């Protein structure tokens, strides 16, 4: 017994490392139990509070730059508003004529980005809005520039958002001009759109928006523009590189669309796929 204890003490560093690895692997295998959700909630609240207190620091650094950008954007938006007013009136008339169902207006929750994940490629952000503000799991996150991501965890006053630049992020997207649908994802280096048949006419500069196939993201949200598109010899699909319209390096304020998936539609689609 004493010999065994001596051996344990002799190799304690290795044994502790093995124990840490085993616990980590177990955690990786059982990722989303209620207990882990509760612990995660406590961690998010604790760190979120400190991040909130420290939130002024990046503001100070980027205030001047942001001011210039906002002035420029203001001018552009003023032009766009007048154009949109015209378009809205025209759209209203046309919708009435065609008796189309009026598209539901979404409500938004404004949130500040108070933290970013420090690990490479684990593209998540911490928002200072949570369940008390109406933010729920899987709600889309946007800015005026376009789609940012979706909510993947919430606590009472904070939420974690998964960005478009995350390896697990997928969104059903559409090439606006060609009406070609595909799946947009991050390949570790850039955004790509896959499953767009070669027969579709897609060109550099075409806008990419969310399609109507998604139960999470409303249709028509800007995602990006096509940076390059080509067909590999013998391939059936286009290889499309997409440049996101959102500048993720300067992300400070976002909006959470308080839309939850239509449960009737989800249930029906699940029944059909069984």
């Amino acid at each position, binding site marked *: 017994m004493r010999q065994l204890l001596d051996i344990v003490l002799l190799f304690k560093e290795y044994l502790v490392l093995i124990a840490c690895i085993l616990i*980590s692997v177990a955690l990786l295998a059982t990722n989303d139990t209620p207990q882990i959700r509760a612990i995660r909630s406590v961690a998010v609240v604790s760190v979120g509070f400190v991040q909130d207190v420290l939130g002024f620091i990046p503001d100070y650094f980027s205030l001047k730059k942001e001011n210039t950008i906002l002035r420029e954007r203001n001018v552009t938006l003023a032009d766009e508003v007048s154009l949109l007013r015209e378009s809205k009136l025209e759209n209203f008339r046309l919708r009435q004529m065609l008796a189309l169902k009026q598209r539901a207006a979404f409500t938004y929750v404004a949130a500040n980005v108070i933290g970013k994940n420090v690990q490479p490629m684990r593209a998540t952000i911490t928002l200072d809005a949570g369940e008390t503000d109406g933010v729920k799991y899987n709600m889309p996150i946007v800015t005026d520039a376009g789609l940012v991501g979706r909510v993947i965890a919430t606590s009472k006053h904070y939420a974690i958002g998964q960005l478009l630049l995350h390896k697990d992020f997928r969104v059903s997207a559409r090439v606006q001009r060609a009406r070609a649908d595909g799946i947009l994802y991050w390949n570790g280096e850039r955004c790509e759109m896959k499953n767009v048949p070669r027969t579709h006419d897609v060109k550099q500069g075409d806008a990419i928006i969310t399609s109507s196939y998604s139960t999470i993201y409303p249709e028509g949200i800007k995602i990006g523009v096509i940076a390059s598109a080509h067909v590999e010899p013998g391939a059936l699909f286009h290889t499309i590189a997409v440049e996101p319209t959102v500048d993720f390096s300067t992300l400070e304020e976002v909006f959470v669309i308080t839309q939850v998936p239509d449960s009737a539609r989800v249930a029906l689609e699940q029944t059909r796929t069984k």
Partner: protein
Amino acid sequence: MRRIVSYTLLTVLLVALHSTLVNVISIGTAIPDVLLIWIVYISITSTQLNGTLAGFAIGLLVDLISGNDGMLGLSALTKAVAGFLAGYFYNENMTEQTLAGWKFVFAVGVVSLLHNAVYFLIFLQGTEISWWRIVALHGIPSALYTTTLATVPMFVFRRKYS
């Protein structure tokens, strides 16, 4: 006990500060890992065993605040390994010399590079993303940046102990 409490508070502050300032201090794909420097410091000043445990705890905190991205345990694992590796630079009689010398920067460099290599090896499982490409694109620049950043505490310690 007092040391554990102060280290815990400092860790929470570092995690929050780092995640708040990450935009300001990142250069392209290079994201410095301040927490890794902290783990190396703990390993060098208080044994390999403590470094491993501290790495595990810090990594777990990072995992917990990352939301439900299916990777809970990844940082805990990689940072525990980092703490363990940094423990090889521990020498009870040479702590001050190690911290105030290039050995500390070298330790951060080696640990950071291996940490990133292991991190992406697990992180990219089940994807078509090339490990080599991501290590070249993110892992090496981030490790170099972290190593460069480690010269700051090294010079602080040099001034303190000289």
